[in-house]
């Protein structure tokens, strides 16, 4: 048993942290709030120079072919910096779907471009008034042998104004999981975008489709297979989400505890009061546990062990830990922390949104629970 990083992993952590400290201070995060594209070119250049868009893309497609542990390391740093970049939706989810479900042609068309930082993809999954479950995908596709005609609305589409393609989830039949994934150019005729106003003020869009024609060749994988591919890719990707949460929570704690050491009231630093110190201690304990299960999920994936259940657990644990850590840190700042001037609110708002964004905790727990009970003799 050895829970240390390798030298290379430590170097990756250090060099990425240095780059983000230089190119992604909170001023950059603030600047991207309300920005149409949602990520700054200079930061994207630096991210690309480090090979991050292709970190886990296979070397044959121009990626670095690294594993889940390296991905977790990267996402922990991204979480610390609240880096406004499309790496999760593009390099983890979209590239993941392409690798799993794409034809050779589709892979060759997109994976090298994604790895090189030249193409960015995102997902159009969720719909207004609907849930995270397969039943939430209602966008009618009018599928025939030639292709699809899409009419309807998607929302919460990240970076839609900046991407080369959207992977759109469409209904292909009446069984709940009859879902297809189709590549659509957001600049195609009939597609219109409207930027949302979110808690994190990040670049998310409502995307309307008005009779948008999509050829059958734009579908990823076999007809009706989309949901199964998605479940696999999202669940595996939850390790990266979990790492992001841990990084966000840890950085929030650094800000919060630093403030608690200098801010004085009643003649002493507020951190000397147990009512302030003890919640910090609880948050630190939760974060430590969340970090461990995240790394375990990544290690399990890298060593060919069952990992999807662990990844889901890691995501849930990280959400719990980060919610507490950002809450405690935000509250420690008192009144001044409630103003936009202080950075802690950046962490609190993003953490809370992050928890909500990838599935309901209830549904995830139910899924895990069914598996756990099913695994009993």
């Amino acid at each position, binding site marked *: *048993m050895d829970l240390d990083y390798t030298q290379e992993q430590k170097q990756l952590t250090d060099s990425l942290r240095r780059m983000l400290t230089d190119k992604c201070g909170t001023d950059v995060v603030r600047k991207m709030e309300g920005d149409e594209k949602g990520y700054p070119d200079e930061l994207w250049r630096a991210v690309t120079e480090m090979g991050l868009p292709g970190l886990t893309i296979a070397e044959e497609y121009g990626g670095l072919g690294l594993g889940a542990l390296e991905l977790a390391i990267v996402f922990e740093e991204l979480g610390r910096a609240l880096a406004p970049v499309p790496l999760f939706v593009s390099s983890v989810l979209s590239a993941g779907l392409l690798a799993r479900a794409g034809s050779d042609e589709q892979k060759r068309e997109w994976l090298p471009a994604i790895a090189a930082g030249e193409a960015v993809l995102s997902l159009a999954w969720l719909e207004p008034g609907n849930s995270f479950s397969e039943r939430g995908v209602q966008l009618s596709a009018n599928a025939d042998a030639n292709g699809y005609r899409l009419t309807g609305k998607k929302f919460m589409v990240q970076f839609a104004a900046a991407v080369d393609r959207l992977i759109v989830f469409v209904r292909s039949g009446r069984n709940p999981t009859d879902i297809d994934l189709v590549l659509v150019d957001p600049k195609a005729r009939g597609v219109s975008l409207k930027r949302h106003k979110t808690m994190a003020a990040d670049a998310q869009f409502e995307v309307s489709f008005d009779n948008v024609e999509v050829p059958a060749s734009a579908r990823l994988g076999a007809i009706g297979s989309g949901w199964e591919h998605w479940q696999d890719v999202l669940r595996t990707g939850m390790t990266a989400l979990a790492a992001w949460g841990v990084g966000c929570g840890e950085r929030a704690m650094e800000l919060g505890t630093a403030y608690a050491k200098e801010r004085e009231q009643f003649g002493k630093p507020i951190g000397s009061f147990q009512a302030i110190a003890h919640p910090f*201690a609880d948050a630190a304990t939760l974060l430590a546990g*969340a970090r461990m299960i995240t790394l375990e999920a990544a290690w399990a994936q890298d060593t060919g062990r069952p990992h999807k259940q662990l990844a889901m657990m890691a995501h849930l644990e990280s959400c719990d830990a980060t919610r507490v850590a950002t809450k405690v840190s935000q509250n420690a700042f008192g009144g001044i922390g409630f103003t936009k001037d202080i950075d802690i609110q950046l962490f609190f708002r993003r953490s809370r949104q992050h928890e909500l964004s990838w599935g309901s905790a209830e549904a995830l727990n139910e899924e895990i629970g069914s598996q756990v009970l099913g695994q009993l003799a």
Partner: protein
Amino acid sequence: MDFDFSEEEHAFRAKAAAYIKQIGSKPGIAYKPTFNSGYADTPDRKQFMKDLGRGGYLGLSWPEEVGGKGMDGVYDYLLTEELAYQGMPGSGKGVGIIGKTLLRRGSKEQQERFLPKILNAEIDWAIGYSEPDAGSDLGSLKLKAVRDGDGWRLNGQKRFSSSAHFAEWYFVMARTHPDRPKHKGITLFMVEMNHPCIQVNPMWTIDGHRTNEVFLDDVWIPDSQVIGEPGQAFYYVAEALDFERHVLFPLGPIQRLSEILLDWINTATIDGEPVRERPEARRLAARIARGLEVCRLQGLSVLAAETPAVATIRSSMNKIAMSEYGRYLADQALELMGPGSWLTDEDPDAPAGGLYARARIAVVIWIIGAGSNEIQRNIIARRGLGLPV
């Protein structure tokens, strides 16, 4: 990065498991898959400890020069976990706190006198730290020791010396230097429990165990039974607790209670319908599996700590995680089981054998004992986060 144990480590645990099962199958070592299962004072338990010693399982991480096996701390962990999982007594305070303190701070003569007996499980130890007025604030203890010839004369009282009614030796802290700052005036002594001037009175706990008040009335202890330097004991004891705390909080009871509850959820019916069909029961199963795994990892992280300073903080985190998850587990079980859940394990109608009623009561000592969770939070806040609390 490797979260798995090595082949040798797996093999060690498997072998220990088989041996423990074999020597543990006697009536007087009651198996209770819950907290605090190892306090029984019976001939069967004493024999169990001797058999454990005979199997070579005591003093695994002690240096070979003093009769130990010189093995890595991971083997202590594996043994502790297996004993706890099987509901057996732990390897004990002798090989743990007391033996290791003697190894770190004791004289050669003390090591020669006591260590072999500890390895052979010939001595049971009781610990005298807490007093009626000194619990969390251990540094304020008042048991007085006055210099008397080549030794010290002790007068005063201890509380919560749980093994005092059957132990042969007492490991006790007393104030020898009232003129010094309170944390610097305490000394650690060893004395025979059957000393005529020591009186042991029982106190019964709500989870059905016995602990004791111990009265020392002019107890004279020679210098040869003082451990380390007079006045320094507070630091010896704090150090020992930091090193041994995680041993007091093994995964075993948590794991068994989690497994049994999952099994109950999977097989029980309420109003004639399977509990497992209820969405809230499935969600609870998920939380149990996750909570258990996080506790296990908290324990592993203590083991993997790169320095003692880091191990101390993680040990405090482990304690909080284990105790509060254990309480959550018991609470959830009681809620889910509905009417009858408050029957004790002595009632044949109790669901799941009344384990969770017992667990809910027993887990309280995990929250408040060995340094209450508030104290652990202070440790984490101070040493882990640098807060001036």
